[in-house]
């Protein structure tokens, strides 16, 4: 796989504040990569640096091997889909989609054919003569996508394009966007703060925090093997058990206020007395389950339709969540004491970074 985007040692300062701290990152050609993080983490700044709207304070950006760091946006082989569409209100849908092609000096008939092709791609045939004001939010974002894809950019950048849509439409658009990306074999860099969105759509996710990429990998790698407490908290819900490592008896375990838990095999070097955190996903927790066991007092039962979440108190400071299908928790009531277990290797040991 060739590399589409290379971010090499990019830093960005806005006055005295640092938006990005030395970011090194690559996006492969044909990949769908999400930059995921809370607002202010630097994800949009990084996207704008790739698009050319911000220039990095240090470092370089290459696209398909060409150094574009000093190129203005209009000379970069990238196109951006804006959060709020940014369709030109004084042009029709057709003129919007054809704008970039007209700027490039394409012939009228060629533009028209291409515009029709793009509108078909986003399933808006026959919408060419509409004004942007006559479109629904979902349609407007589809037009914005068609406009950005029309001149076949080498990399398509998307800045939270679905965040203004309601949930149902957003979920539908996620699948559509993914299907379009696969069909075209295009490279997409997608910025979002919505972890589910990132998990559903991406080949790879880069999680950002405080101007850094803290972890990147496939959705599965990131969900199953978060490399920090921050990531395990950010992606999905998790139970965190804090304690000190005990390596006596040949088997590493974590001593916590609520008991001692086996630490699964890890590449990390563990020493007795080290403060660590064990992260266990709620859906890995079973009632009367095999493996590690702990007793908890049921304090909350949250019915979610397809799933039920049960909160149990292990010790005064720790609420432990289990999640599973409705029938798994039949007959349990608040105030019951239940035994909880999980497969040992379903837990992840992490350094205690205080988050």
């Amino acid at each position, binding site marked *: 796989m060739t590399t589409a985007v290379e971010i090499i040692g990019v830093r960005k300062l806005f006055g005295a504040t640092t938006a990005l701290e030395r970011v090194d990152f690559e996006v492969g050609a044909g990949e769908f990569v999400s930059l995921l993080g809370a607002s202010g983490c630097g994800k949009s700044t990084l996207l704008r640096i790739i698009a050319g709207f911000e220039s990095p304070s240090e470092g370089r950006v290459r696209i398909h091997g060409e150094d574009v760091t000093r190129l203005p946006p209009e000379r970069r082989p990238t196109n951006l889909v804006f959060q709020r569409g*940014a369709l030109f209100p*004084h042009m029709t849908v057709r003129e919007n989609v054809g*704008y970039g092609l007209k*700027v490039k000096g394409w012939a009228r008939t060629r533009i028209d054919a291409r515009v029709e092709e793009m509108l078909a791609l986003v399933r808006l045939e026959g919408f060419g003569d509409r004004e942007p004001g006559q479109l629904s939010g979902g349609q407007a974002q589809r037009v914005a996508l068609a406009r950005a894809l029309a001149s076949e950019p080498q990399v398509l950048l998307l800045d939270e394009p679905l965040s203004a849509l309601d949930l149902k439409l957003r979920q539908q658009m996620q699948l559509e966007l993914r299907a379009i990306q696969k069909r075209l074999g295009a490279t997409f860099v997608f910025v979002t703060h919505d972890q589910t969105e990132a998990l559903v759509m991406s080949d790879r996710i880069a999680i950002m925090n405080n101007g850094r990429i803290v972890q990147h990998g496939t959705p599965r790698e990131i969900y199953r093997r978060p490399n920090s407490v921050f990531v395990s908290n950010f992606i999905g819900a998790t139970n965190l058990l804090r304690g000190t490592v005990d390596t006596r008896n040949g088997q590493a375990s974590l001593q916590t206020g609520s008991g001692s838990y086996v630490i699964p095999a890890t590449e990390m070097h563990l020493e007795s007395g080290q403060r660590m955190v064990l992260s266990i996903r709620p859906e890995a927790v079973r009632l009367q389950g095999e493996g590690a066991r702990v007793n908890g007092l049921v304090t909350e039962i949250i019915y979610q339709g397809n799933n039920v979440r049960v909160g149990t108190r292990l010790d005064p400071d720790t609420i432990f969540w289990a999640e599973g299908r409705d029938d798994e928790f039949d007959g349990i009531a608040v105030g019951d004491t239940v035994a909880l277990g999980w497969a040992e290797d379903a837990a992840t040991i992490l350094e205690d970074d205080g988050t």
Partner: protein
Amino acid sequence: MLPAGIFYVVFFAIPMLCLLGLSFWRAKGFELIPDFTLENYHKIFTSPLYRALMLRTIGVAFATALIVVPIAFAIAYIMRFVFERRGQLILQIILLSLFSGYLVRIYAWRTILGKQGLLNSTLQWLGIIEEPLEFLIYSNIAVVITLSGLLLPLAVLPLYSAMLNVSRDYIEAARDLGAGKLHTLRTVLVPMVIPGLRTAFAFAFLLSAGDFVTPALVGGSQSMLIGNIIADQFRGIGSNWPLGAGMAFVVVAVMLLAYLSVMRLIRWATRW
């Protein structure tokens, strides 16, 4: 809408209709005689003086608008897209400058453009010129410069307010799609602020076309505008209200025509 409609009728439509009616009357000495005669209009359209003044007025008004609108556009652009939030501060300063009053500002320009004025003495001090530039005062150029200075703040306001409604996203989207800065200006920003541009042009063009104080104070013997001759019809010896009313209506019609042609031109130049 209704209160605005009533206001419009009482304070604009009715006085204008009265004036229109008056333009068909006759004057005999200081006496106004109700009539329905086209005599006034006949006089206007056959008078070489009136035609010359009309042409000069259109020229001065166009020149003023051509100076004012681009500068106002640039100032509004900088306020909106460079200074962003701090643009509001500049807005306050511009509003403050309007407090100084119309006549005071004309006199201020006189001290700048005069023979021993600020501009001439600075240029002499810098050694760029030896003798004062005579054409800077009591000339058509002085009228255009002064009118431009007077009307610039007024023209900035509608443009700035129109640009406040243009999200930076649109500018960036155009750049992102391959348009250079000038192309983005022509195909995206200008079409999106046409209402503001229209108002700014109307302020600059129509207010300078109707002005008669500036030519009197900084203009020369050949700088009289149509407003001066109309004003003369309404005051003092030799006044002729019906003739003045007729002149005023011809001016309204001509200015409206000129204004609409320019709007057409802008629309054509920014077509996509």
